[in-house]
């Protein structure tokens, strides 16, 4: 796409518009002047025939001027520039991105619920409330209160207050451990370093004993922190300066949000953001497809599977998909992927075909010289 060409075309429109607009002003000015001149002549003279002849002159003069005719040329140029710009936009962009849209039942209540949840989970609580109110949807109270708590914790962390975060981590101690998260320790470590930064060695030691020592399985970590105690007051010149880095705050806030969502049973990223981002990547391919299938409306509407793959970034790859290299079928429960003794993988149906449905007769792997027996093939779980 050539944005510069587009910008040039737009500049041409504004230039012509300025010319046309000053021309209009000028024309009005001229007409006004002519009338005013006639006016002053009438005012200075008094006789009736004079007056009529002045009016007659004015009329002919304005007729000769063809004031509107003067505007025509500039207006024409402006129109041309505008048409050109519109055409250019149509050429450079996808003029109708709804071409691949299916007019199926797209329940707006469901979409509204998704939007409301999105606004809450992105921390836009006022806007979320306003949306629920204006759309007359059922309020999504759960989402709101949960994420409200999360954003309060994150806000406090922004102002360097770990209190709410630690409170949350302690309350969810069991669950966090079950998930294999060490965020609680990380929060305590940060708090410990904050105390130490202020030079309160005794207090730091006390904190260590009360809150950190229970995490005895993280022994190396604790040792390191204990060593920091020796450097209290001159941490900047210690081997542990890395622990002072402010990036820990940002990283920990990120991790906390992740764990918080995890415990709520929510995805870390807003599902709406993910879906729209995937849509942006997929739409160009789908539009091309819709163009190709333009004449086959019925086929387009009734298809059960897209006829072409839509390449998305890896971040949208949520599932393992196995496509049999022989049959090109997607593996399924009825037709699972099977590992042959040579290490190559095919779908079950392809193996059945290759072995001619005879489970005792060995067959050659399509990809290597190995002779494979059906009995030795193992089902895989991705």
């Amino acid at each position, binding site marked *: 796409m050539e*944005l510069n060409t*587009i910008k040039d075309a*737009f500049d041409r429109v504004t230039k012509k518009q300025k010319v046309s607009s000053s021309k*209009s002003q000028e*024309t009005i000015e001229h*007409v006004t002047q002519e*009338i005013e001149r*006639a*006016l002053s002549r*009438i*005012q200075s003279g*008094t006789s*009736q025939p004079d007056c*009529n002849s002045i009016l007659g002159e004015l009329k002919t003069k*304005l007729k000769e001027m063809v*004031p*509107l005719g003067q505007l025509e040329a500039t207006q024409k140029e402006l129109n041309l520039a*505008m048409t050109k*710009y519109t055409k250019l*936009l149509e050429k450079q962009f996808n003029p109708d*991105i*709804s071409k691949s849209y*299916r007019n199926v039942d797209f329940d707006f209540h*469901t*979409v509204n619920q998704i*939007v409301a949840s999105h606004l809450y989970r992105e921390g836009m609580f006022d*806007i979320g409330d306003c*949306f629920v109110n*204006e*759309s007359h949807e059922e309020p999504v109270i759960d989402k709101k209160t949960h994420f409200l708590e999360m954003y309060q914790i994150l806000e406090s962390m922004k102002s360097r207050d770990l209190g709410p975060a630690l409170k949350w981590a302690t309350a969810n101690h069991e669950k966090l451990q079950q998930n294999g998260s060490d965020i609680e320790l990380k929060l305590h470590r940060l708090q410990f370093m904050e105390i130490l930064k202020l030079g309160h060695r005794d207090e730091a030691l006390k904190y260590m004993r009360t809150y950190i020592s229970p995490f005895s399985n993280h022994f190396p970590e604790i040792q390191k922190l204990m060593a920091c105690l020796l450097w209290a007051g001159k941490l900047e010149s210690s081997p542990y300066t890395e622990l002072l880095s402010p990036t820990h705050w940002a990283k920990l806030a990120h991790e906390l949000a992740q764990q918080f969502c995890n415990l709520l049973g*929510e*995805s*870390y990223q807003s*599902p*709406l953001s993910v*879906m*729209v*981002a*995937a849509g942006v990547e*997929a*739409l*160009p391919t789908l539009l091309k497809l819709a163009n190709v299938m333009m004449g086959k409306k019925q086929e387009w509407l009734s298809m*059960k*599977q*897209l*006829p072409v793959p839509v*390449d998305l970034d890896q971040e949208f*790859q*949520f599932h*393992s998909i*196995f496509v049999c*290299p*022989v049959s090109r079928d*997607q593996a399924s429960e009825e037709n699972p992927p099977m*590992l042959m003794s040579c*290490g*190559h993988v095919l779908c079950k149906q392809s193996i059945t075909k290759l072995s001619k449905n005879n489970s005792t007769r060995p067959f050659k792997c399509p990809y290597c010289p190995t002779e494979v027996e059906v009995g030795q093939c193992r089902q*895989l*779980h*991705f």
Partner: protein
Amino acid sequence: MDPLPNGNNVAAAPPPPSSSSSKLTESLKLEHQLLRVPFEHYKKTIRANHRLVEKEVSAVISALPHSADHDDAIHHLNSLVSRLQGLKRKLEDGSRAERLQAQRCRARLDHLESADGDNISEWNNTRLKRILVDYMLRMSYYDTATKLAESSNIQDLVDIDIFYEAKKVIDALHNKEVAPALAWCADNKSRLKKFKSKFEFQLRLQEFIELVRNENNVQAVIYARKYLAPWAATYMKEFQKVFATLAFTSNTGCEIYKVLFEPKQWDYLMDQFKQEFCRLYGMTLEPLLNIYLQAGLSALKTPFCYEDDCTKEDPLSQESFRKLAMPLPFSKQHHSKLVCYITKELMDTENPPLVLPNGYVYSTKALEEMATNNNGKITCPRTGLVCNYTEVTKAFIS
């Protein structure tokens, strides 16, 4: 059948993914509406200003008297001069509007230009907000739309003022009034004609129906003569059908005529208006949000999304998204794409899949790490099976 070399190589790689910059360009090409809508607005203002000049100047010229006595002439010419001065003032206001709208067009061009690799996540974020504001405006959630735009400082990138123009008409139709809608039709007469829009005719039909409902039969006939007859040639069938309601009246049991008196006709008019309005401004007829959601749903929908162990990160693990995806087709894959259950990373040549004795597959990275941390022992997270790292075998996937 693709050739696949034996050995430790996973071959038949999928075509190289298009580079991120061309992906960005492709996504920018979807932004036609972003540039088109403010330009249509700009054009409209330019045209209105021009028409004003034409109308006033020709009115002044034709109002010039041929002859008049002295005082009359002075009086008359003075009034013409002040009329022209009024026009000048109006034009100055008009120019101000033109300038603002040109600025808005330019702001959007700059916004498109600002999208590059460095700020892309922020840019994408803004895009989602633009899409949401567009959705809210089309759904007539004006307050939320304004709030969201203001809080994100994207007023120049969304079309709130344009939709406020629609609001008046929609509100009126909601109250079963057609006058603002008819005025809107008159304002946009030539363009509606170009699109062969039927909207004005439909409004007229509704007015006629209302007269019949109130049993103003004589007036209904007069109305039909005046406002419906000009359309009759183009839409004879509908004209005849609606005209027949005079015979059936509003309490008819006859189904074809009964529906014409139902209140949902007004909702239909409202939808019709929204469509015409969007068409006129070069907007998509569907909200952008729905378009992008549908595309995303089609691309992400796989049979695995509907299984119980679907990961939470997949939006299709949620009931609401599943519901929307129901009537849409599944996505298609030509090549295997395997994601490690443990690390969620792609299993490819760099990080090949390994098979446990029980047939469960994980990435090399995940199993290596597990083995190093547990003295060479592997525990299958899904079945609990414990085995040695030496027992795992390679699988060759194409």
